[in-house]
């Protein structure tokens, strides 16, 4: 029985842990959880991004934006024993919580967050091996450093494992 700690990753934050700890983000709506894992050293990292790009923001919080968060997360993973070429990514979140979006672009930020996360990962040549994104449902996720599995719970659909 693995008994690691559960480390909470809040909005606009990111964390890196070693086996057997787990990383958890609750209530992802339009936000995206970018999960990285190195299967050899079992280093796991999770970023909880809110917006697609830091462009146009002065002195941004790096973990808040998909582009800067992925860069930072990869750097941290490498410092903590991960190897870039071994890293694999899983994505969850990026929903459109309100369906009658009309002209309000804020309500459509979820899919843009997903796109920006994919682009940022592609820049590092990190493959997205699984994802549960989009839709109109909130998600709580947990990344297990032990085997890289990503557990996802929704209000309507119960839970799944990627």
């Amino acid at each position, binding site marked *: 029985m693995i008994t690691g700690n559960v480390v909470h990753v809040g909005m606009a934050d990111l964390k890196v842990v070693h086996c057997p700890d787990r990383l958890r983000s609750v*209530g*992802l*709506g339009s936000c995206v959880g970018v999960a990285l894992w190195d299967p050899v050293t079992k280093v796991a990292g999770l970023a909880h991004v809110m917006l697609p790009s830091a462009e146009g923001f002065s002195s941004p919080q790096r973990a808040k934006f998909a582009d800067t968060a992925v860069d930072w997360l990869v750097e941290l993973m490498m410092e903590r024993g991960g190897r870039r070429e071994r890293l694999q990514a899983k994505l969850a979140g990026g929903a459109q919580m309100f369906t009658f979006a009309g002209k309000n672009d*804020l309500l459509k930020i979820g899919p843009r967050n997903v796109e920006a996360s994919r682009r940022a990962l592609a820049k590092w040549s990190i493959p997205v091996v699984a994802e549960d994104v989009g839709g109109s449902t909130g998600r709580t996720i947990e990344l297990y450093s032990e085997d890289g599995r990503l557990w996802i719970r929704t209000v309507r659909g119960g839970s799944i494992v990627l």
Partner: protein
Amino acid sequence: MERLNDRHLDALREVGNIGAAHAATSLSVLLQRPVRITVPTVQLLSFDHVVDAVGGAEDVVVGTYFRIGGDFPGNLFFILPAESARVVLRAMWGEGSLGDDLQSEMAVSALGEMGNILTSSYLVSLSDFTHGKVETTVPAVAVDMAQAILQVGMLTADADSCLIIHTGAHIEELDIWCHFLLVPDPEGLMPLLTALGVHGG
């Protein structure tokens, strides 16, 4: 935003008070029961703590959301916790299990309409009180985790926190609570304070 003084906070509390009082009157008419509102709180909260005002991050709520345009851009939420929403539906539709499934089309539509009426009352009073132009779009409604719903109100915030004007409403006869959260955009705050006559200390 950290430069808000006591006069600013008082003025913003008054906004929360007047807006929610109007909305509570509408709610009271709708449910034919007295509704009491709390003293509003005005707080600068980190993103993860915004949800504390209405319950846990993963608690299921019915959320009605208004994006506010015009002189004071921002966001307004009416949040009804799942249990309260079921009680409200029973009060409106009579006893029976019709209202137990909050995801049903009828439930979402009824609760969305109610949210629409209440948030509109709130915004009309905001406009009257400030003599400002308050533009609204069609309200949106969702039934899901509280944090996932409130997230949309934080997208226009500053780096890592946002200002929340929270007013609770209590319907004692039904033993339920609901919540109004006004989240001004950072650039909407100063015009709002100016309209309230307290800008510049």
